[in-house]
């Protein structure tokens, strides 16, 4: 196999990875930031970074875990930079928890059930808002992205025990919010 052919195969691989994983990366960033424009920008940056480093991807973990790790780091960098510069602007662009909970599909529910469900989703958003950045990341990877604990540990660079601890605290906070004790 020539070098050119190998490069072409790698490019095709990367294109298929972008196609299959881009919506998930975007969803995770959107849930983390609650800002559509910012989530789109960071998703673009994530795949740009991934493309630049695609040659160095050894396949130790799944491509999704690798991409998620890049996205988490980009998000951290973003918050670090924003905190020093225009964090207020970012906060202004992010939508509120009530607006975020409006997206709940109707399903088979009655109008009353729908209202109750929306209120509960708003309470979860409120609890998520009060979590630390690390707890929020772990919580969203588990309950929005349906990731296994081992995958979360690899994506965040934490041990499984630490991931469990963060997840327990986040869940306790959500429960407290749902019971109205916080």
């Amino acid at each position, binding site marked *: 196999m020539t070098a050119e052919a190998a490069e072409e195969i790698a490019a095709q691989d990367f294109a298929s990875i972008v196609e299959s994983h881009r*919506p998930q990366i*975007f*969803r995770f960033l*959107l*849930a983390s930031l609650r800002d*559509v*424009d910012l*989530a*789109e920008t960071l998703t673009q940056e994530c795949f740009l970074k991934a493309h630049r480093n695609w040659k160095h991807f050894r396949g130790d973990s799944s491509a999704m875990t690798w991409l998620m790790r890049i996205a988490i780091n980009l998000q951290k960098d973003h918050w670090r930079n924003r905190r020093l510069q225009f964090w207020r602007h970012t906060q202004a662009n992010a939508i509120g928890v009530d607006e*975020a*909970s409006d*997206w*709940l*599909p109707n*399903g088979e529910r009655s109008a009353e059930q729908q209202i109750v*469900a929306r209120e*509960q*989703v708003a*309470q*979860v*958003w409120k609890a998520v808002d009060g979590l630390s950045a690390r707890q929020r990341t772990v919580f969203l990877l*588990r*309950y*929005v992205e*349906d990731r*296994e*604990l*081992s995958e979360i540990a690899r994506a965040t660079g934490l041990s499984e025990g630490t991931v*469990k601890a963060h*997840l*327990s605290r986040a*869940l*306790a906070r*959500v*429960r407290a919010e*749902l019971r109205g004790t916080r």
Partner: protein
Amino acid sequence: MSWTDKLPEEIDDPMVKGVLENFKASVDAWSDAAYRRPRTVVKAARHNLRLAATWALGCMLAAGSLAGGLYERHRRQELARVEASKAAVKAAEQKAAQEHASPEKAVNVKATAVTKRQPTAVKKAANENEDLLASVDSDVSRQVPAAMEPLAQMMVDNGTD
């Protein structure tokens, strides 16, 4: 939810499980809608707006600098004009003062020169004046006024003269 490694808290609470499923469904719906939305040229509009604002600010600064410069130039010209007029008035006053002072000086100088040049003539003239005054005094003293004539005649008659 299909985790194989569940936490104990995740297993025994169906209410929380249901709420978390609703939460996930909500995020999925929002993300799908946002992902499929038609893209607008927001960035370009923002860029144009920023560019226009930058230009406006730049123009304002340039106009301000120009106006400031012109005002300063005008002020300096005014100051120079006032200074020049003051200097002209002062010079005119000095000239006028010099012109007033020069005739007196000329007379004094002339007199001094004459005095220095002719001291004997002056002395001579003064002596002549004194002699003339003395002769006049003696003549006057020898004349008898008309009103005193009868008295003087009487004195002559009595032999008291």
